[in-house]
């Protein structure tokens, strides 16, 4: 069974993928919750536009999203130049850029899951909290967010899984640099492009499947616990 053992380079790709996906998920979570809440609970001018922009990466070719990111967040792009000059942050050809690409691609899935669970919350409970003296922020923190927890967890796991599989936008934006931006999908792609890479591709494929399956099981378990709690059991 020696062929199942990952080479050091392959381990690097696995660890990088986990790191990129975790940060893509964690960094976009606050924005995801905010946007989901805005779409679920507020009416404002430009709501349809916001909804459209959030969902755009879902329907656009990933290469297009990656190229747009390169244009805006590349070293010479408007946002990229600003961030570099003022904060010394660089996205292009760095793992942080990979995380940004994954976050953008996963954002619609995260927002959708959280939004649906916020919409399912009985607004009369929020009104009841209001009559007990809770202002909008307190209502959100003590009623809305805890009750939406199953959806938030589902959104986080979905975003993580999506980030683990992101390929097109990442490779367009930050290329395919081993140890820096070469995530699992990029590594598998590279293996398939070189003679004798079949075994490596197969090993990383198995790792991908295992991680995706694990994420699903953990999310099921967490969501069931959270929804029991929300249902008061």
């Amino acid at each position: 069974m020696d062929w199942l053992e990952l080479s050091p380079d392959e381990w690097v790709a696995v660890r990088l993928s986990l790191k990129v996906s975790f940060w893509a998920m964690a960094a976009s979570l606050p924005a995801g919750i905010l946007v989901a809440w805005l779409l679920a609970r507020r009416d404002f001018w430009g709501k349809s536009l916001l909804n459209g922009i959030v969902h755009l990466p879902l329907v656009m070719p990933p290469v297009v999203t990656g190229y747009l990111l390169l244009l805006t967040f590349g070293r010479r792009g408007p946002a990229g130049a600003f961030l570099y000059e003022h904060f010394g942050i660089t996205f292009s050809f760095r793992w942080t850029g990979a995380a940004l690409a994954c976050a953008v691609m996963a954002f619609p899935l995260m927002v959708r899951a959280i939004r649906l669970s916020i919409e399912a919350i009985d607004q009369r409970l929020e009104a009841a909290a209001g009559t007990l003296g809770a202002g909008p922020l307190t209502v959100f923190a003590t009623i809305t967010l805890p009750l939406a927890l199953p959806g938030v967890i589902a959104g986080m796991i979905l975003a993580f899984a999506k980030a683990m599989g992101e390929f097109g936008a990442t490779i367009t934006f930050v290329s395919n640099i081993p140890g820096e931006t070469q995530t699992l999908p990029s590594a598998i792609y590279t293996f398939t492009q070189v003679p004798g890479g079949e075994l490596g591709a197969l090993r990383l494929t198995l790792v991908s499947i295992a991680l995706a399956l694990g994420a699903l099981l953990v999310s099921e378990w967490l969501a069931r616990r959270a929804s029991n709690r929300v249902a008061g059991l």
Partner: protein
Amino acid sequence: MTLQVDISHRQGDFLLETAFESAGSLTALFGPSGSGKTTLVNVIAGLVRPQKGHVAVDGRVLVDTASRTFLKPHRRRIGYVFQDARLFPHLTVRQNLLYGRWLAPREAQKAQLGAVVDMLDIGHLLARRPALLSGGEKQRVAIGRALLSAPSLILMDEPLASLDEARKGEILPYVERLRDAARVPLVYVSHQLAEVARLATDIAVLDKGRLAAFGPTADILPRLDLFGGAEAGEGGALLSMRVAGQDRAFGITTLRSQAGEIVVPRLDAALGTYVRVRLRARDVMVATAKPQGLSALNLLAGTIVSLEAVGDSGAEVRIDCAGETVVARITRLSATRLRLEPGMAVYAVVKTVSVEPAGAMPVG
């Protein structure tokens, strides 16, 4: 403690236009469904913003459209017990109870958790979650939660409507305790006259968005014209009577007021305490002479004050019994045969009596 309401609010075809000022410890908003009761409490709570008008509690203005004042619900400190309880499902009973208390300004907190829990008998529920409570238990917790948020007024929107008859009987004593002990005025929405007669110190009768009548319960209840539909026949006199005697051998209690004496099945009440006695007009007969050989025990002597035809066949007789008015609903045929007319001395024969503890009812 006063509640001032003067509002005009249109919702589609429905116009709510009501003004009253109540200082009672329990003001009932009474009327059939669709009469605007819930809209009115939602205006008081701040969940509905009226197009025009003014609402104040104890002089503190909550809404005043003229000066563009509108306090958000969370700044009003008005407790609200909803028809469907609305307990927070993810919190335990204890956390639900303390939710409003935790948010209330410290100096306003009068009610203690222990005292409220004792008053409502919910001590054994504290660790549970709302999903495992019965309907009646949920309502008791909801009442406690509202009370602990240190409100200056508590609104109760048909808190018994979702309960069956047995459960309703379970909750009513707690509402009475709240009315008499908590020193927080209550506004109680109901479409059931029996509930209102038992609980209210004052009644505002709403009909299609308008105030049909407002006044102390004892003045409103005998006005049979106010109560139509399902509640027709529920109206009648409300007397405040004193427990004057207990007869253990026959299991009966004698109640007395200036109107006379009434005998009821044994009441568990001390001599001298006051009780609320409701004499429904349809349970009162009229006799021109003292009846002999009649099983009904309760006779009140008096003189007819007025006689009015009601509907096709009914007649409403008001009898003055030594200063207290008793109302009888009889047929017009009987009234004609007996040649009843104002000024005539008669006996009111009472078939059924419902007795409630008097509590905060104005006595004497």
